[in-house]
């Protein structure tokens, strides 16, 4: 299973900004809306527990959104 964690909309994302600034200098144009978050991969016996794990430990719901993909 995978949890994709990203900065909430409206929250400052300095990493995303830094990458967005760096790419054109390397000759990569046409890049926008860069956001840097976290990827958590794990094996869980009971996937139904995942949302609770996210809320409690894996994600800081005040500043991050998440999405569970399998």
């Amino acid at each position, binding site marked *: 299973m995978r949890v994709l964690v990203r900065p909430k909309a409206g929250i400052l994302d*300095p990493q995303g900004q*830094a*990458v967005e600034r*760096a790419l054109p*200098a*390397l000759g990569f144009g046409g890049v926008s809306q860069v956001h*840097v978050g976290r990827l958590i991969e794990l094996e869980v016996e009971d996937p139904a527990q995942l949302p609770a794990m996210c809320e409690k430990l894996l994600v800081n719901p005040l500043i991050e959104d998440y999405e569970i993909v399998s």
Partner: protein
Amino acid sequence: MKFGVLRFPGTCDEVDAQLAAERVANAEILWHGDRDLKGVDAIVVPGGFSYGDYLRVGAIARFSPLMESVIDFAKQGGPVLGICNGFQILCEAGLLPGALLPNRSLRFICRQVDLVVQRTDTPFTNACEEGEILSIPSKHTTGCWYAPPALHEQVEANGQVLLRYAPGQNPNGSLADVAGVSNEAGNVFGLMPHPEHAVDPLTGSVDGLKLFTSIRDSLAAHV
């Protein structure tokens, strides 16, 4: 002789590195956006948090115009010393083997550590005694040196490990207690601990000065 000390946005230890270098020679700060190395004889890539450590430590700074000149300088055999973030940048730039991973504790750790000198026949350690222990502060969050097994073996076989943490003092989980490695040619060297912060008895030890002295003396020997 003159040291050139690089400054990127987010660099923190460049002034300290300049002051340390000035104890043994001249030193000048070089701006990341320029290409001109201003005729310096040796390069110091200092510590700090270039580009905020964003994305990956050293990843963004490695592409600055000045770094391109430094890469050329290194390829021509010029001495380059990378300290902490400078070490990370040199690894990202491919001038040094391996990569720096997060400390095992996942924490920033600031602590005085003992380093065991592995070789003294290099431009960076010739002022040290064989087996000498240097007391130098170390401070970072991402200082666990790593290389895949084959590369590690090669680095060891070539004698590229110039400094190791003394037994039991490895602060970050670094492979084989590696504190600093050089490139194969021996003219580029990176270490996590901060020799520029160990040059004045008032604020700590003076052991770090030996690295700067070594660079100066090795250049003098070549003239």
